[in-house]
């Protein structure tokens, strides 16, 4: 070994081991950022956020190291597909490639398309079907958050992990609804944007992933409410030099490309081929790995996330 001082950046260790400690360097002066009026000032200097490659590898280890997560994830895809077919969905099957993605990516495909296809009648019934699907997807998202966090924290994911994950349900539900609203508004604005609509859509998806992706992990590990979790998620995402934007953009872009790229199972039909199953199941594992990688990234910097800025006292208050 070289003997040089090692900075254990991103070396999240499960409880019982050496927890990552915040760096001892003095906090630099807060820098005003775009959202500082709403959230905390951005901190300067490097963070303990692990690099992209390490996050992905840790995500793979987390998911692939647990027969429970892999098995449940894959079987869930089968269950979702059979449920959709029983409800009258005619395909394309390839939509399910994003069934385990996080909102708003999942909203782009599964959450809106399948209910719209199977619900007949008035707009209200379509809306009700969409909200039912959003709620189901929020449960799935929360449950897998519990599983990956348990696995990361050194335990083994089990059905108890899935139950524990339900603590994050309010947050995942809020994220799903927010994703749906963002995309609905985007759809209405799309005609005004013309050729830029696709880029605007991608930007909305990246932004949603970037800002809100940590929220379920926060709700689960820190037992905070929806607004606190989302606020903290935004602050964690915006930590400088954390590479979060690039990490989210890479994932969101890959997911959107996967969604629109021609692939097996892209036509109408309810009996998928072996190749179509392979593509959808591998992609589903990819989404679970990303979820685990996100959880890992947040747990590594949990102690470094800046607190919200205190709201300045309005002049004159308390003078009486």
């Amino acid at each position, binding site marked *: 070994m070289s003997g040089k001082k*090692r*900075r*254990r*950046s*991103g*070396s999240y260790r499960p409880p019982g081991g050496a927890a990552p400690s915040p760096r001892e360097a003095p906090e630099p002066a807060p820098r005003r950022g775009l959202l500082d009026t709403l959230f905390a000032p951005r901190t300067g200097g490097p963070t303990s956020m*692990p*690099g992209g*490659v*390490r996050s992905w*590898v*840790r995500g*793979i*280890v987390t*998911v*692939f*190291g*647990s*027969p429970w997560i*892999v*098995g449940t994830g*894959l*079987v869930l*895809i*089968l269950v979702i*597909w*059979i449920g959709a*077919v*029983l*409800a*009258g*969905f*005619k*395909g*394309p099957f390839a939509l399910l490639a994003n069934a385990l993605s996080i909102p708003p990516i999942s909203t782009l495909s599964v959450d809106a*398309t399948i209910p*719209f*296809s*199977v619900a*007949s009648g008035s707009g209200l019934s379509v809306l009700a079907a969409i909200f039912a699907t959003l709620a189901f997807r929020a449960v799935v998202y929360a449950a897998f958050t519990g599983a990956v966090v348990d696995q990361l924290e050194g335990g083994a994911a089990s059905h108890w992990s899935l139950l524990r994950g339900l603590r994050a349900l309010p947050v995942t539900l809020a994220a799903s609804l927010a994703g749906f609203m963002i995309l609905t508004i985007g759809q209405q604005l799309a005609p005004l944007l013309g050729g830029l609509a696709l880029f605007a859509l991608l930007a909305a998806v990246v932004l949603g992933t970037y800002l809100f992706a940590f929220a379920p992990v926060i709700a689960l590990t820190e037992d905070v409410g929806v607004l606190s979790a989302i606020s903290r998620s935004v602050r964690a995402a915006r930590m400088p030099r954390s590479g979060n934007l690039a990490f989210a953009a890479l994932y969101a872009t890959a997911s959107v490309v996967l969604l629109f790229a021609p692939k097996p199972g*892209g*036509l*109408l*039909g*309810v*009996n*998928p*081929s*072996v190749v179509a*199953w*392979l593509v959808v*199941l*591998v992609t589903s*594992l990819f989404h679970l790995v990303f979820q685990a990688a996100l959880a890992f990234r947040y747990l590594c910097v949990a102690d470094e996330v800046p607190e919200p800025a205190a709201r300045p006292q309005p002049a004159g208050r308390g003078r009486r």
Partner: protein
Amino acid sequence: MSEAAPVAIARLVHLRVHRAVVAALAVAAMALVAVPALAQVSSDWSQFQGDAAHTGFSPNGPQPPFELLWHAPVEPGGPLGTQGLSAPVVSGDLVIAVAAEEVLAFDLATGAQAWSVPRTLGPPAQPAVALVAGRPVLLYTEGWAGHPPQAGATGATGPASTPSPSPGAGGTTGPVDSRLVAIDPETRDQVWEPVELTEVSGAGVTVDGERAYVADSNGQVFAVDASTGEVEWSESIGRPVDAPPAVAGGAVVVTGRGTAASPAASIVAFKAADGSPRWRQVVDSPAILSPSAPAIAGDTALVTFSDGTVRAYDLDSGTERWSSRPGATPTPTGSAAALFDGAAFVTDTTAITGSVYRIDTSSGSVVWDFAVNEPIIQGAPVVSSGSVLVATTDGSLNAFDPESGERIWRDDRVGALHAITPAGSVLVAVRSRPRAGLDAFGPDPEGGLIREVSPTTPEYPRIVGTFAIVALPLTGLALVIGRLLTARMAAFEDEADSEDER
């Protein structure tokens, strides 16, 4: 799967009990639905979807399997060279179609060109043949009202169920040269002086007895005496008309497209006798709605819309009887329905997929669907004897069993196919580039039929089996990778730390 249980049970009972007497039902359906309209014209396919009611039903049309009899090449024309042929009509031994700047007639038996008549440049809208005192009169529209298609405009290359390239209501920018022309298809002599329209017309002509109906993109509807050319009445619906009016039961039903200023589509019925308004319905939509040509089944007018809905209206009162959305996706243009045996056959499409549906005309419920998985643009289905025929933009011609919904025959060739026209024992359709022109199909004595269920028919054992074939090895592989990576994780993190520090 989308059927309600009572409907499914009813269907099952229907299949078991009525299979033996299906031929009798077909005859009854002909009598109830098609014959009133057919009785007023010749048995030829004389206009859009065959008759004034637009039933799309040919009681004596050919049955699959088919073979290609002949191909008559016709290169697309017009300023952009993109305007193909209109949907053809049949007059005696001739099949007649409108091209950008001429009207062409072909011998039905051989495909040889019989004659051509020059025409003022205009959208290739479907002509019609009226019988006046026992003699055929060919009616077609011409002219582009001073604004022929420019680069980037979409050319109307097919049947009249699709939007014309018109500028919308109003807005004429040049001299109006749009006319309704009548010629004798045997002598090619003009029968009467052309009737001036108020705007370009891409809708096509409808004939009912000795009266012709035509509408233009100003929304003006004309009823013209086919024997004299006299305009008997003219009324406006206030929206661009892209599809030919349907006429039955003393009513003329016209559909109007929504515009940017007013996205809602409208369906308007006039009294055929004098053009007085009968009823009017407006279909609201957040997006511009393009309706299909109406089709009239008994006392019900059926219209499909570009939002994917099919709606049924009482022919007398205009009351909406039902609305059904058979497909998952909106379709760019409403596809006109074909009517047979108490059912409407409609199609929808996306850029890569298309489906055929059988809808019960009394309830609006979907009886069956078949995913063709090819786009079906300008693809109004046709019922030829006992087969539902659908042409696709990928170039295939498909035949379906109207009872079971199974595909029973398929032919696949290069070039988009549309506008199927049954003509006696022959089937003529328009094909686009690279093999543009007319294709004629006839019965193939050596061909065979198939029985293919829709890919949207679930086979649960197959679903689970295919899943297991993939999921089991994938799970094993994932766990092996997980174990290997877990063992090497510490070393990896050290390396990654070093890289991070560098």
